């Protein structure tokens, strides 16, 4: 537990700092009220709106841990959302819609995984194919329009609440816990890290790296499907052009803010999710602050640059050193005082 805490400490501190920054502009940040059987407040907005990026970041973390990248997740969201809306529209019902959407996500992941693991295409190129083609596929499914539907059970996944908590937040928390247990309670996490660090050596050690790679991309497709379902349920319609647009970049950013190396190896899903929440807090904060729209992207970019610089391997250890140094001084105030006095007398003499 303490090792986990130490791993995510930079992300937790960053999140606190970003929240404090938003609180300056919006002092009642933590005000949460309970109305109409739902919790209402800025933190609730953050965990709800952050759901798609958090979900994508979960799958993306594993892909990046294998030294890969999945650029297609935004388009896969659109495909899965369209599939779900189409199923509802055809009258197949809630469960069939969910099943079809999730299977669509897994198939997209399988396609990416086959290109990467079997045909040895570089991940950035392999997933670029679906990133570009995916929105076309989604438009074929929706027929080029925003495919709207009226199904309260399905809409519940996007805008409903469970014990006052928005359902999208419940979904990403459960998915995060599920994936976390899957990789850490089994040997999957170790094997994924191993192929990420050294694919050839891992294969020679008997790891079935090909199947593992495919599974990881399918996991990413599954997470994208969940995100697509939420986005579609949220607006009660599948918007093939805009659903998940550019979210792959936010997901990659969340993984990076989570301190995971793009070169593969060690990973932390929790840290990536915290990264997603940091991004969403910034997004929500910008909306709340009421700056003109032209400033949105600039403010976000500046904050992200500050965060990444502070977390860089050159700066972070120095911050940690300063932090520890201050704690040491505060624990032993007398000693430092005497040494200061010594220094003082020395300069006098």
């Amino acid at each position, binding site marked *: 537990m303490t090792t986990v805490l130490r791993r995510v400490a930079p992300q937790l501190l960053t999140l606190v700092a970003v929240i404090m920054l938003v609180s300056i502009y*919006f002092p009642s940040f933590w005000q949460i*009220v309970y*109305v*109409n059987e*739902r919790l*209402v*407040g*800025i933190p609730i*907005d953050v965990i709800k*709106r952050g759901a798609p990026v958090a979900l994508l970041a979960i799958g993306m973390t594993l892909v990046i841990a294998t030294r890969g990248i999945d650029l297609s997740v935004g388009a896969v969201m659109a495909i899965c959302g369209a599939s779900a809306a189409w199923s509802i529209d055809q009258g197949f019902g809630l469960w069939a819609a969910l099943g079809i959407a999730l299977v669509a996500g897994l198939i997209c992941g399988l396609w990416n995984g086959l290109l990467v693991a079997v045909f040895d295409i570089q991940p950035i190129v392999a997933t670029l194919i679906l990133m570009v083609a995916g929105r076309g596929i989604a438009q074929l499914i929706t027929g*080029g*329009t*925003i495919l*709207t539907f009226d199904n309260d059970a399905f809409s519940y996944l996007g*805008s409903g609440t469970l014990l006052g908590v928005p359902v999208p937040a419940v979904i990403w928390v459960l998915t995060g816990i599920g994936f976390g247990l899957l990789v850490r309670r089994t040997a999957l996490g170790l094997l994924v890290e191993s192929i990420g660090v050294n694919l050839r050596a891992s294969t020679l050690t008997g790891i079935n790296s090909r199947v593992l790679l495919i599974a990881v991309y399918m996991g990413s497709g599954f997470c994208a499907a969940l995100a697509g379902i939420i*986005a579609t349920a*949220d*607006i*009660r*319609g599948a*918007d093939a*052009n*805009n*659903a998940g647009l550019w979210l792959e970049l936010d997901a990659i950013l969340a993984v990076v803010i989570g301190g995971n190396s793009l070169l593969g190896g060690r990973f932390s899903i929790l840290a990536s999710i915290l990264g997603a929440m940091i991004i969403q807090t910034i997004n*929500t904060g910008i*909306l*709340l602050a*009421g700056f*003109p*729209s*032209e400033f*949105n992207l600039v403010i976000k970019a500046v904050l992200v640059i500050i965060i990444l610089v502070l977390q860089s391997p050159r700066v972070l250890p120095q911050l940690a050193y300063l932090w520890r140094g201050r704690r040491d001084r505060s624990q032993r105030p007398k000693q430092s005082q005497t040494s200061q006095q010594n220094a003082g007398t020395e300069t006098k003499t």
Partner: protein
Amino acid sequence: MLKRTLMASVAVFTFAAGAGHAQTIGFSQIGSESGWRAAETTVTMQEAENRGIDLRFSDAQQRQENQIAALRSFIAQGVDAILLAPVVATGWDSVLEEAAEAEIPVVLLDRMVDSDPDLYLTAVGSDLVHEGRVAGEWLVEAVDGADCRVVELQGTTGSSPAIDRKNGFEQGIAGADNIEIVRSQTGDFTRTRGKEVMESFLQAENGGADICALYAHNDDMAVGAIQAIKEAGLNPGQDILVVSIDAVPDIFQALAAGEANATVELTPNMAGPAFDALEAYFADGTMPEKFIQTESRLYTQADDPAGEYEARKDLGY
């Protein structure tokens, strides 16, 4: 003698064409990048059918060279007139000159070109600023002097519809000191962002209690925002007035349900006025204005929204 007969026969021919017997008109459409564009294509075809016009349709798939090729082919076929929805503003001079030499009138739909106005008969389009002004004027009338704090969902930052509709709305409310835009953010013309940004407005404005009206630059964002208002426990259309632009089918459902109050139509029927102008031109050579502004009609809950929805839902939006 010979000359007179020739002129007479030309007159007879033009008269026959003007009378609407088997008139042939070519239509070069940009593509089908949006629901509105698809609806425009559908409406144009319907209008042509109603008037007994033989419409030759060509989809350019967003490429100017396809459009130029289509225009040349129309000229070669000797059509009576050409409708052109140009994908870009420049590069049309030579093909328009070819049409002028063949004495085929060209009518521009929806978008303008940078060529000499003598090269085309007229242009049919909407005025984005005017649309915004209509929405603003409706709001002034609707609140009737009461204080009103308005939140605005802009289109994609920097796009001309976003800029013009914002300006138009501000002109519309300029005279009313009781109306004030308190928050304005981009919703990128999408439902998702419309909903997300509206949530933050509600959050920032005392749970929505301080908001009197929402102005959205398009209906899609308004539809998203209406859901956000409902989820916040307020009644859209009553607690918060909702006015938007475009008049797509989904907003009529909201109007019918009392969740939206007004929408300004960006009509997909650009072809109707174009055909009218052509008919008048063929009949007695009447030269139309160089720009025909389509009506920016305001629809409210009183305008049979349910019926409007039925009429529009199959247009391809």
